[in-house]
């Protein structure tokens, strides 16, 4: 008798999973998602390039601004800590795909 | 062969924590011992000239078998008295040209 009650209760319950992409889960605002470099403020001091563990953020010698390769980035936020003008920050977007490969290499 | 058993007995610790090797001229070996109630560990530094082998601590601490075997495989030193020294712990690797770590 106890088994029947459990079976009926489980058949009437909603599923516990969230039906993505119709509904998206809430991520906290502190989450380290996509990286954004404000190139107006960047002064080309090379500090972020020296400190990056994987070599993802590189200063272009032609225009002295920093560009990020998202394929190599490990999202550790050390570049945001050492930048003297605080021009790097993280948004909480977690969907980082694109059909254009070259665009992902120079963010 | 370089003898270290008497130096290790004088330290008289409870456990052998780790065996580290650093490749410099001459080759350096660091042993760390621990007494259970103290935060700082006791350190023993040994210099190994080229081509010499080192005495194993397996008679004092039984877990020296695998710690010395890892150092022996990485740097090519022999530990006399350790049955696992010289055995292959890590599986066969193809030759790496450097691009795989870029």
């Amino acid at each position: 008798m106890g088994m029947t009650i459990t079976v009926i209760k489980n058949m009437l319950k909603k599923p516990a999973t969230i039906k993505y992409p119709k509904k998206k889960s809430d991520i906290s605002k502190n989450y380290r998602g996509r990286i954004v470099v404000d190139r107006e403020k960047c002064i080309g001091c090379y500090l972020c390039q020296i400190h990056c563990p994987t070599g993802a953020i590189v200063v272009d010698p032609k225009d002295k601004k920093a560009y990020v390769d998202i394929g190599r980035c490990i999202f550790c936020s050390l570049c945001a800590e050492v930048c003297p003008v605080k021009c790097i920050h993280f948004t909480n977007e977690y969907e980082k795909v694109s059909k254009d490969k070259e665009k992902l290499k120079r963010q | 062969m370089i003898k270290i058993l008497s130096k290790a007995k004088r330290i008289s610790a409870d456990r052998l924590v780790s065996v580290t090797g650093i490749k410099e001229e001459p080759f350096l070996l660091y042993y760390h011992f621990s007494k259970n109630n103290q935060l700082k560990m006791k350190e023993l530094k040994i210099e190994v000239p080229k081509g010499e082998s080192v005495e194993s601590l397996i008679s004092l601490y039984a877990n020296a078998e695998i710690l010395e075997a890892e150092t022996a495989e990485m740097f090519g030193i022999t530990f006399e008295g350790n049955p696992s020294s010289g055995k292959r712990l890590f599986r066969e690797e193809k030759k790496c040209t450097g691009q795989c770590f870029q």
Partner: protein
Amino acid sequence: MHRTMFPIGPQHPSLKEPIFLKLYVEGTVIEKAEFDLGYAHRGVEEKMENKEIDTTLHAVQRTCGICSQCHSLAFLNAVEPMGQIRIPKRVALQRMVIAELERIHSHMLWSGVMMHEMGLETLFMYYMREREKILDVFDELTGNRVHHSADLIGTMKMNFSEEDIEMISKTFDSMKDKLEDYRRSVEGHDVIRDRCIGKGKITRADAVKYGLVGPVARASGISYDVRVNAPYLGYQFVKVNPVVRTEGDVHARTLVRLDETFESMRIVEEACSKIPKSKVPKYPVKRIFHGQGAGRVEAPRGENFHFVKIDMAKTKRVKIRTPTVANLVMYPKVLQGADITDAPVIVMSMDPCISCMERVAVIKKGKTEVWSSHELFRGKKHD
């Protein structure tokens, strides 16, 4: 008599990570066991040569996914005394809160997979559901669910606010009743008792002789815990009671880990009530140029040890010895004489974390060179 070699791995549903265990079986009893390593080699120690110290700190945390804060703390315990940096109380307590929350989520993951080994899928799902709440707490506090990256040399990146501490309390209140219910099942359930009691026994004499660490040693009667015997960081402000049992079999190891979860929850709540009003210091605190040191901490699996050598403000050599390596010598001996159907349960009760264990040390002589293990063993680059 015919002897068969029965492999567990390299890929096996009972293992979280790849390791090759060769069991030589006669009938159904295991006569001898050997292991083969090297399937998760990534070259972590090679990546940490000739880099800035803060860069190495962020690379060290990526050695393992389950126990990332303990590697960061061991590295800081080795590096900060070199510069005589004084750690303020708020930084010490905040680092400790993250480390204890990590211990809770690691033990819950282990409990879930252990129940999955024995075929109890519902209990596995229940543990995973409770564990998700801890990962959401990490998301709010530090910005990521597994690799927190919250530490810097001498300071931290964020201050915990009043709302964060209230959120931690509310999460624990919603979890405690269910965890106590599950623990009662594990202690009293007939199937679990039949499969765990008396299997994989490690005596106290063996544990002392081989220098075992972690919950494996504490389940055999040795009361050794780095947080109690040699307190570091925030453990000077909060007292820890170690959990010790004397039977030494699989059942004792399971109960030690489940009891440590409750003890960690008490430590986190006491630490949160002692956080002072001052803020963390501004970055950067101090530059370190020369030195050499060693540090150790209590990870969820035992004692974690780091040895760091710094020259001209760059790290020259980092050596990591994880608790899985310290217990590795025991795997062939505990499997000898056991039945083959008990082998996955016994291996899982020792809690191996293989990705922590496998790194490679590559020697550079001024220019960039990568050596395979063949060349390292022979001592020269080309044959």
